[in-house]
């Protein structure tokens, strides 16, 4: 079967009902050859159901084209030669040796009574080698661990040698190294021109490996596209009902999420945070979750507190690293402090670059000082900052960071 368009799977207006309950409500999806599609969505969204429709276990209404041919025109064995499916539940209760289980992947390629040829054994062993399971080929699958069994089943799926591979939570019971491994295998399969559609629970992994994500919720596709387009705060709240901040981790270069409780009690109170060197991040997060209107500054470019401000999308005043705060930045900072109902001075080290933040703190309407470490240990200005700090301390509320919630 050759399809010039290069579409591996085309799904049009797919509906699936169980006992009158509609599980899939009009799915439209096109998966091109060589794509690694991740199906994501909350539990019970219909990811598994959709996978089972694609290989015909679930008989759904609507159209499914496998490589251009309608699914219902294919016999069971023909489907199994084109589409392999790895189920979520990989338990096997009879003690078949691992190799025998993998060899069953050749079933759709064999005629009745046809024995497995040397070539079939070669294929099975090749994929067992690939999935690092050949070392226990003779061991009964009932006597290996869940993760090992999952890899054996993955080898069986590969042994089917299909163009389209469906995986339902392929890494569910795998440890972290094998989890990464299985997705790396998938990328290699993609490189070899195969098509993979996987239901994936772990959004970070999905974002990292999949070329396309499909977000399903309540039996409908609510977003599809490249990971950045799909994994937005808006979509996350729509699908999972959570508040999430999606950002690209500067260290790993990968999409990451920060989930927080609802900000339903949004207070109008404005707070300005004076921090730096990572001292403000925790404070900003806490204030953000509580719904305060936050601003921060002056922070040097490259400071992790500044990244934090970017992630949470709050106003900040920045200056060049390793240089003193400019007059302009200082003036902006003072304005912010004067506007804010509360100013928080974080547990930060004081040096020549940021001493003007202490000066600015004098203009606070209400000053809270967070003090976890003695200021003497944080002073790198030969006592100049310490004097300023002493003055501020007289008129401020001083708390350790763990008790910040008591004063705001």
């Amino acid at each position: 079967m050759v399809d010039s368009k290069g579409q591996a799977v085309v799904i049009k207006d797919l509906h699936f009902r169980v006992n009158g309950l509609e599980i899939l409500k009009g799915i439209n999806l096109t998966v091109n050859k060589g794509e690694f599609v991740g199906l994501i969505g909350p539990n019970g969204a219909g990811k598994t159901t959709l996978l089972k429709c694609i290989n015909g276990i679930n008989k759904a209404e609507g159209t499914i084209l496998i490589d251009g041919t309608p699914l219902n025109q294919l016999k069971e064995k023909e489907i199994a030669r084109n589409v392999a499916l790895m189920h979520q539940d990989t338990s096997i209760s009879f003690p078949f040796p691992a190799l025998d289980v993998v060899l069953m992947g050749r079933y759709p390629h064999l005629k009745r009574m046809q024995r497995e040829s040397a070539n079939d054994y070669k294929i099975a062993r090749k994929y067992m080698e690939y999935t690092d399971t050949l070392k226990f080929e003779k061991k009964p699958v009932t006597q290996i661990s869940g993760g090992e069994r999952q890899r054996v089943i993955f080898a069986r799926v590969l042994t089917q040698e299909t163009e389209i591979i469906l995986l339902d939570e392929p890494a569910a019971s795998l440890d972290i190294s094998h989890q990464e491994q299985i997705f790396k295998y998938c990328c290699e399969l993609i490189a070899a021109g195969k098509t993979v559609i996987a239901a994936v629970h772990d959004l970070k992994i999905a974002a990292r490996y999949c070329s396309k994500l499909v977000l399903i919720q309540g039996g409908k596709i609510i977003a599809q596209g490249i990971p950045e387009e799909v994994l937005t705060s808006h979509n996350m709240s729509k699908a999972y009902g959570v508040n999430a901040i999606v950002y690209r981790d500067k260290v790993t270069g990968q999409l990451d999420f920060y989930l927080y409780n609802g900000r339903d009690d949004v207070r109008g109170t404005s707070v300005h945070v004076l921090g730096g060197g990572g001292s403000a991040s925790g404070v900003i997060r806490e204030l953000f979750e509580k719904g305060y209107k936050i601003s921060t500054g002056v922070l040097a470019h490259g400071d992790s507190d500044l990244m934090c401000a970017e992630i949470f999308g709050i106003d900040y005043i920045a200056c060049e690293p390793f240089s003193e705060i400019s007059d302009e930045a200082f003036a902006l900072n003072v304005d912010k402090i004067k506007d804010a109902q509360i100013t928080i001075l974080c547990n930060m080290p004081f040096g020549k670059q940021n001493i003007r933040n202490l000066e600015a703190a004098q203009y606070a309407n209400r000053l809270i000082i967070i003090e976890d470490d003695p200021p003497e240990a944080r002073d790198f200005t030969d006592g100049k900052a310490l004097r300023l700090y002493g003055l501020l301390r007289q008129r401020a509320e001083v708390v350790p960071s763990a008790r910040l919630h008591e004063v705001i």
Partner: protein
Amino acid sequence: MKKPQKKFIIAMLLALMAVVVFATAVGAVYVPFVQTVKIILKNFGFIKNAEFQSGHESIIFYIRFPRVLVAVMVGAALATSGAVMQGIFRNPMADPGTLGVSSGASLGAVVAIALGLTTRSLYVMPVFAAAGALTVAFVIFVLSLRSGKISPLTLILSGIAVSMFVNAITSVVLSFARSDQVKEYIFWTTGGLGSRRWEHLAIGIGPILICGALLFLFSRELNVLMLGEEEAYALGLDPSKARKIMLFLSSITTAAAVSVSGNISFVGLIVPHIMRLIVGPDHRALLPASAVGGALFLVLCDVVARTVIQPEEIGVGIITSLLGAPYFLSLLIKTRKEGALL
């Protein structure tokens, strides 16, 4: 089939041949082994001009030898059906007896007798037995397979309920029968091989050989079914269709055996289970091993049944029940404890 499995089955076949000769030779009248073999060979025309002690020839060739062959046939049929049913239902406690299929076959046979149809043709009884077995198989299929998942114990419990129901109907039918037919009841419920002759072999051999061979062709499908319902589907096997065919064939096999020997319990349960421990779960080895093992087991049980209280004999079904029931109980306890199938 792998080499050690092949060797094991060949060894069992040789043992079976030896046991057949032994079982034919022993009895109220002892006939030496060599004589026994010679009588059998002479009557098949392999050797000529052999003289035997008066009466030995007819005892051996017309009474004991066909009975032993019936035991071989019935044992093989029941054990093969048992192995297949355990595979279909993925349940080591399933067999023609525990599922009630044997009881259904018994009922069919009794109905045929009560209607007085058995004199019309030799094949009336197996046809009725098959009808009874298939009816029960259909009920079990609807109860368990169509609805999807069913726990191993629920399956066995429903099998027992169906069995009791069918046995009750059998009693009703027999209470309308003439008094001399009523003692037949024991034969049909506990099973026996007493006075089984060549014609009984003729009744059963056709369907058992045909269905047995067809079942063997399905052994790879059975293996795939073992992986689970949806796994089978993903490999291109419609599990429901495959199960229907295999349940049909194994029910016919059971019915053919039951219409010859009555309802002999536990052969289909113990033998495949032990064989699975020896040759493993691969049905390509398990089915032939079960067939040979079942034959061996039933022939030996029948020897015990004939000789233990000579000159009287007890039904072979009683012997298999005495051995099988404790085994079944231990299997039940093990299954409950482990919550697993094996």
